[in-house]
Every structure is written in structure tokens, then in C-alpha cells.
């Protein structure tokens, strides 16, 4: 039998159901590997002892009807977890232990999942390299000193390094898909309103979505099935028929019309990204899919629009971290002084930068020129997709304009960092579902991803297309366990 940690999520579930493996064995296997992998710095908080206890309890009275029967899972530290510290990667929540459970993690628990730890991420999910975390950089298991992407960098690193069989991240502008692309894993951002935001530390409420990160498309379908539900505790949650994504998974894409947006051929895009895209197009054609050239004319405005809308919402969402009720508090001469010291010391530079941008674009005299204008452009971007979907079933693009970069390489150049999200951001603005799957390597041997964008609430179609691509690409991640040896 192969190593437990090398098994895919669906295989683990199968083996536990067949009693070939116990939850305890599986849980211990991932925990042992996690313990050996501290160098990756993927975890912020570990829940090992408790998880093993839970696994033993599961094994005493196993319920094999569950979709995640005693499966250990580490999650991004943006999900509030009852009695497990939740930091959002920030000093200001360094010692915050929620008394409540986010809906998404509750769904995992309800299906028999066991939380083994909380994974590192950019502070308040603001970043594309996991370098803004108060708890330090995360290593990409692909190569030493390479960023794992962000903001769900701890998640992508832990998944690629097999510290957890699957994980969940959140995606506001690409925070699931870009790290998935950087680590050779699968990441899906569901349609806005699919997964409840209840109990997720908010970054930009109108863009935030939780989603699965897995080794392959099958695992991704299973995870999506588990975490997606209608939730009355989130007013933006949408009631629609959620499929049995895994059961319905199907690689037949005959007759499917796949759009190729010309605006995504950006200047200075590396040749290998272009070749990767062509490879995807070729596979679609070979499998009976139809390639349609489309135009998304407002693509160029997506990034500036995003960097107005997201900071605006963030500046308001982060006001609650004021030292009054919970979290870090610095001593002050008076209330204002306490606020200033608490927030100056409690937040990192990137968070402060975005709070300032957000505060600026909402201020009187600037609101119309920035925030209101951005909302109008956002509507245009959505209209672009609506128009395109009159002609196509889904859209294929690269996930990122480049492969993973070195730690520190872009830290002092925020604009270059922001450009990383150029292919992912428009999808959040339009509220659509999109999946990134590993599709090849660049010259350096770093993974590259392709993105399939779907119609709203049509996650099944993009899973199917991704499934077909995956079969034909047969990607292999060359991870050498360098951090253990």
C-alpha cells in the first residue's frame, strides 16, 4: 500500500469507509508529517492532540455515511473555529479564540472532518505571497525560498507538501487560485453566495468567497459539495440547487463552447504562459469542445476597480479591531490615543496601506470619483461576462501571468505584487465561479495553472471541463521534500 499521505482525499475516504484505514492512522500520518515540516511555516496554530482524540472517538463509533469520515483537515486561519485560536494572520488577533464556528468549517465538522490546525495566510488575506502574515513567510514546497502564493499561502503550501489531504481557503481577488497555481494544486472559487461567509474574518465582503483547495478535481468536487450551502446567517447567501458535484463529475466536454478572451493576452506575458494556454486550447479541441474567440473589453479596468472596492470595504470591515472588545490592545492616554497605538502596532504595513486607500476613496469629495465610479465599472465588467456567456459555456485563461517568485522579490513593489491578480480579479468582481488547475511547468520547473471560469452557480460545468483538462494534461508535481531532509 502506498503512503497514507500520498493518497488523494477521495481515496482516503474510500479506504476509511472500507475499513482499510482508521481515522486515527490517517490523522496521525498527516500530523507526523506536519510536525516534520515546520520549516514551511504553513501552520499558525496546531490542533494535533485534540485532533487525534477526535479521530479515536470517530474510530470507536465510526459513521461511514459521512462524506469526510474522520478525515483530518487543516484550514486557512481566516475561518473562525470554536475554541481554536483564529488570527487572520494578524497581531491584532494574535490571542483571539472564537466561541463560535464558521458555517464552512461547521459543514466540514458535520461531515465528520477533523480540524488538525489553522494555516498561515497573508494578514487579513491582504497579499499575494503570504509575506504580509504577522506569523512569518511560508515556504513553497516546490522550491526553497519560493513564495507559495497568497493570501491562502499556508493552505497551498500545506496541501502541496501533503500536510493535509485537502484544505479550504478564501478568495477575494485570487487568493485561492493564485496559490493553487503556484504550488501545482487545484483551487476553486465558487460563485459569490455559494459558500456562507458567516464566521469568516471579513476582508472585502462583496468579493470574499470560501473555496476548496485539493490535489485534483475529484477531491475538489467533493469538498465543494461539503462546504457549499444556503445559510440564513449570511444575507448574501443564495438559495439554489447545489449539485452532487462529485457524482455528476464527467469529463465529456463534447460540444461545449469555451471562450478565449483576447484581452487576457497581456503585454509582456511570458511565452511559456502563452504556450500553456495554447496547450489547454488544443486539449479542448481534441476532446470535441469548441473554441470561441470572445472579448471582455473592460478587463483592463478590473485591477484598478478591485483596488478601490476591496480596500474601501476592508477599511470599514477592519474598524472593529479597535482594542476595545477583544484582541490586541495597546495602552493609551485616552480613547483616541489607545485606538492609534493599538491599530498602529496591531496591523502590518500592507493592511495599513489598504485601510488608508479605502478610507481615501470613501471620503467626501472623492467618493464619486473613486468608489462610485468603481462600482459602475464593476457593473460593466459583469456585463462583459454576461455578454460572453450568450456565446460560450465557460472561459479558459491562464491563472496567473507568471509562476511563483522568490520570497522578498516583490515585497517592496506593491503594484507589481498586485499585478499578479490580473487574471483572477475580474472573476471576483463579477461574482463568478472559477477553478485553477495545474497545467504545466515553466523553465525553472515551477508549476503553472489554467483557469476555467463559469457561469454563475454553474460550478458543475467548470469542474467537468477542469476534469477533462486534468486527464489530458496528467500534471505531476515534482516535490522533493527538501525541507525535511
Amino acid at each position: 500500500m502506498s503512503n497514507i499521505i500520498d493518497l488523494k482525499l477521495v481515496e482516503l475516504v474510500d479506504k476509511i469507509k472500507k475499513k482499510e484505514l482508521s481515522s486515527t492512522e490517517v490523522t496521525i500520518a498527516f500530523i507526523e508529517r506536519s510536525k516534520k515540516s515546520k520549516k514551511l511555516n504553513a501552520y499558525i496554530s496546531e490542533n494535533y492532540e485534540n485532533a487525534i482524540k477526535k479521530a479515536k472517538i470517530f474510530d470507536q463509533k465510526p459513521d461511514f455515511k459521512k462524506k469526510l469520515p474522520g478525515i483530518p483537515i487543516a484550514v486557512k486561519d481566516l475561518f473562525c473555529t470554536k475554541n481554536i485560536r483564529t488570527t487572520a494572520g494578524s497581531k491584532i488577533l494574535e490571542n483571539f479564540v472564537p466561541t463560535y464556528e464558521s458555517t464552512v468549517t461547521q459543514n466540514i465538522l458535520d461531515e465528520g472532518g477533523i480540524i488538525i490546525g489553522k494555516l498561515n495566510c497573508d494578514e487579513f488575506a491582504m497579499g499575494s505571497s503570504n509575506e504580509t502574515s504577522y506569523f512569518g513567510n511560508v515556504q513553497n514546497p516546490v522550491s526553497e525560498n519560493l513564495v507559495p502564493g497568497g493570501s491562502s499561502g499556508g493552505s497551498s503550501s500545506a496541501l502541496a507538501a501533503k500536510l493535509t489531504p485537502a484544505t479550504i481557503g478564501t478568495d477575494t481577488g485570487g487568493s485561492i487560485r493564485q496559490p493553487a497555481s503556484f504550488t501545482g494544486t487545484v483551487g476553486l472559487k465558487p460563485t459569490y453566495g455559494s459558500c456562507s461567509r458567516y464566521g469568516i474574518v471579513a476582508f472585502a465582503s462583496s468579493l470574499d468567497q470560501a473555496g476548496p483547495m485539493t490535489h485534483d478535481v475529484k477531491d475538489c468536487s467533493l469538498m465543494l459539495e461539503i462546504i457549499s450551502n444556503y445559510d440564513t446567517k449570511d444575507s448574501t447567501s443564495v438559495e439554489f440547487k447545489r449539485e452532487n458535484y462529485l457524482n455528476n463529475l464527467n469529463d465529456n466536454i463534447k460540444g461545449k463552447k469555451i471562450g478565449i478572451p483576447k484581452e487576457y493576452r497581456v503585454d509582456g506575458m511570458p511565452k511559456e504562459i502563452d504556450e500553456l494556454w495554447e496547450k489547454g486550447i488544443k486539449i479542448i479541441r481534441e476532446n470535441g469542445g469548441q473554441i470561441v474567440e470572445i472579448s471582455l473589453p473592460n478587463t483592463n479596468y478590473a485591477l484598478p476597480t478591485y483596488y478601490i472596492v476591496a480596500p474601501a470595504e476592508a477599511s470599514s470591515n477592519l474598524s472593529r479591531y479597535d482594542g476595545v472588545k477583544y484582541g490586541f490592545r495597546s495602552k493609551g492616554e485616552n480613547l483616541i490615543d489607545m485606538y492609534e497605538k493599538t491599530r498602529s502596532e496591531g496591523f502590518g504595513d500592507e493592511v495599513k496601506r489598504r485601510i488608508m486607500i479605502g478610507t481615501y476613496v470613501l471620503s467626501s469629495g472623492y467618493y464619486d470619483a473613486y468608489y462610485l465610479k468603481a462600482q459602475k465599472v464593476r457593473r460593466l465588467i459583469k456585463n462583459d461576462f454576461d455578454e460572453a456567456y450568450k456565446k460560450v459555456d465557460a472561459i479558459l485563461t491562464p491563472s496567473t501571468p507568471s509562476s511563483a517568485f522568490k520570497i522578498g522579490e516583490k515585497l517592496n513593489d506593491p503594484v507589481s505584487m498586485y499585478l499578479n491578480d490580473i487574471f483572477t480579479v475580474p472573476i471576483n468582481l463579477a461574482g463568478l465561479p472559477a477553478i485553477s488547475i495545474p497545467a504545466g511547468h515553466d523553465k525553472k520547473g515551477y508549476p503553472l495553472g489554467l483557469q476555467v471560469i463559469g457561469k454563475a452557480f454553474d460550478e458543475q460545468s467548470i469542474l467537468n471541463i477542469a476534469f477533462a483538462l486534468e486527464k489530458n494534461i496528467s500534471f505531476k508535481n515534482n516535490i522533493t521534500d527538501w525541507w525535511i531532509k
Partner: protein
Amino acid sequence: MSKNNGEYLIIRNDNKYEVIIGLEVHAQVLSKSKLFSTSSTKFGSEPNTQVSLVDAAFPGMLPVINEHCIKQAVKTGIGLKANINKRSIFDRKNYFYADLPQGYQISQYKNPIVGEGSIILDMPNGEKNIGIERLHLEQDAGKSIHDIDPQNTLVDLNRSGVALMEIVSKPDLRSLDEVNAYIKKLRSIMRYLGTCDGNMQEGSLRADVNVSVRKKGDKKLGTRCEIKNVNSIKFMQMAIDFEANRQVDVIEEGGFIDQETRLFDTKKNETRSMRSKEDAHDYRYFPDPDLLPLELNDNYIDQIKKDIPELPDEKKKRFIEKFKLSPYEANILVSDIEISKYFEEVSKNSDVKLATNWITGELFALLNEKNIEITESPISSKNLSELINLIKDGTISGKIAKSVFEIMKDGDKDPISIVEEKGLKQQSDPKELENLINKVITENPKNVEAYKSGKDKLFGFFVGQVMKNSNGKANPKLVNEILKKKLS
């Protein structure tokens, strides 16, 4: 100051100034739970016992609209004869304060749930229409307490997230009396609708007062000042009076009014500058992305319209037509829904005229004296109705009725039993009365002689003597009749 013809003018150096007043009333929505959470809104509980994770703004917590509060706002809008906006938007009003856990208040800014409406005031010289600009829903903040701990400010979040309706009037009010009438009428409408209990002591009704002055005859409005958070009609009037006079003084000295926010100091009876327009907060309003725009359909609004009870203006009209009451009487009886209910219960089974007089006379005096509401009246509507019937059918006189009423005050006793127990039944037997009268005539021969020689005024003396001898029980009408005959 002059109040001639109901006008409220400030006179300085022969200049007459008109005072322009607009009110922003914050009325607490009558609701068991808060606007966006399920916490209780009960008044007077231990600090921080009615606080949910949403109210305390814990990470990842999201607001969910309490449908009941929406219904209450729509009801109030209908009561104010206002447009109900089928699409309204909740915005975030951003500012930092210790008792504002989210760092923003969820309110409605550009798209309120209720648009323009009006309120009719009954002033001594006729009706006056006051325009309503808008009504919107918003969250209340918590309470900062500065005087318990000498070193620290304490925060109570029980009120945090409680639903408020902010009802903004147009600058149509012109006097302290109108302010009084406006608040009372607004309160009355909301109590009829059951949308706000109007309890000012518990802070269910507070107002920000906008005041400006202009020379009488000027068309242009003067610069206004806003006096924040005044919590009684008396304080509103004191604050307006002080502020209007202050503004006139400034203008008379050649100065200009700065648009600013002021506070009313109830102890010193003065308003003080809190912040100028330049220092005004930039609240950075924007639509709350956690809440979708609120969409109401016609069916929903029509359904609520069907459940709207008869409101004071309509009730007044009906009372005048059906019961032939004077507008003055009708006004008093409809001013409060509980009074009108009491009146209708009493008048259902007894004489309307007597019911009106007894309620507005004896009963109101009693309520005033005890400082209680009509719902706490020691005399039930049923017993008052019986008392009135005893007067009407001649069982007791009006005077005896007053002493029966005195007994009823102490523990709602039924007047029929009181009359029987105390033997207060009116003496109406002509023979018995004749005996009493004969006795008085025999005992007062000199007065009889004087009366017969033209001293008509002495008639009252004889009546009085007869009543006295009967312990007040003699039927005064019959005594009059018999006496007239005997003395002629």
C-alpha cells in the same frame, strides 16, 4: 418674545425674528429583538446581558435583517401618510467610538425606506400641516458610562444594535407649542400603530433639533445649528428658546451664525458648541456589502396597509360625527390610543356627554394627581360606565357620584355596591321629600316670610337645608319642584 396670534417671535431693537425648527426624532422600534440580531431589547437589564456576537462585532459576524422591524417602519410610514420606498439601501456610517463595536453604524443614507409624508397638528388657531422629509432605519449604539469608575470608561452594549426609526421633519415648525404638539402627535400615531412605545424616560424617543432664525418676512432660511440628542419635550423647548435667542444676539451684534453641532446642558440651561462644520465627521457612507438592497413588493405593503388601525385624525373625525363631541373634546380623547380605548369602552354602555366630562374631568385629575397612565387607572372603564349610569337613571346625584368616585379610587370597587352599602341612593319618594321640606319650612318662618315678600335668593337656602337634612341624598330636581309649590 411675543406669542400674539400663536406667533413665536423674538424681538430685539425693533427687529422681529422668526424661529425655524426642524426635528430629527429617533424613535425606538417596538420589537422584541434587535435590528440585525436576535438579542433581546428589554429595557433596564443588567449591563451587557443582551449582547450577541453580532452586536459586539466579533470577527466574521454578519447582520441579518429583522423582518419585524421592516414591517414596523413601513407601518409608521403609512401612519405618516408617506411614500413607502420599494427599494431601500442600508449604508455604513463609519466612525470610531468605544460604544460602537463595528466601527460603523448601519443606517440608511441616500435610499431610506420611507419618503415624504406629513403630520397634522391641531393648534389653537387651526390645523397646521408639518412635512415629513423621510424615515429611515438604523442601529442604536451602546452606552459609554464615564461616572462609575474614576479611571476608566465603561461600556454597556445592551442597546447596541437596537432598531431606531429616524423621522426627519421639514423645517416647518415655528414655535415651542408646535414642537410640543408635533412630538405628541408623532408619539400618538406611533402608539396607535404599536411601532414605538414613545417612552421618553427610557430613551425610546429622542430628538436632534435644528434651529435657525430669520428676520420676519425674509424668504431665505438662516444658517442652522443642530442640537444633539435632547430627550424630553421640556428640554427641547428650553434648548430651542436658548438657541434661538443666542442666534438673534449674534446677528444683532453684527455677527454670523456658524453651522455647527451643539449640545444642550440641562443643568445650566444653555447650548454649547460641540463641533463646527469644518470639524464635522466624514462618515464615509457606503452601501453595506453584508446586506442586499431591501426590496418590498406592492403585495407586502398592501398587506400591512390592511392591518393599519384607525389613526388619531380619523378617530377624531368619527368621534365628532358619531358622538357629537366638540373638536376640542375629541382632540383630548384621541390624543392617546389608550385614552380613546377607555372612552369608547365607557361610552359604549353609557351617556357620551357624561362619559366625556367624567373622563376629561375627574378621571384625568386623578391620573394627574397619581402621575399614572390611563392603563394604570384604579377605576376600570366598566365601573366608570356603571357610575355614569347611576347618575343618568337618577339613582344618585352628580354630587353623590363624586363621593362614590372617591371611594372607587381606592381599589376599583363597583359603584352599585358602594351606593347600596353606604345607603347613598337618592331620595326620590315625593312623600318623604315633602316631610323633609315641611320640616325646613316650619323651622324657618322668618325666612319664609322674607322669601314671600320678594327675597328670591333665599330659595337656595331652603334647597340647601333640605339637602343637608337628607345627607345629600334628596333628589335635587324633585326638591326644587316641591319647594316651589309649597312656597308659592
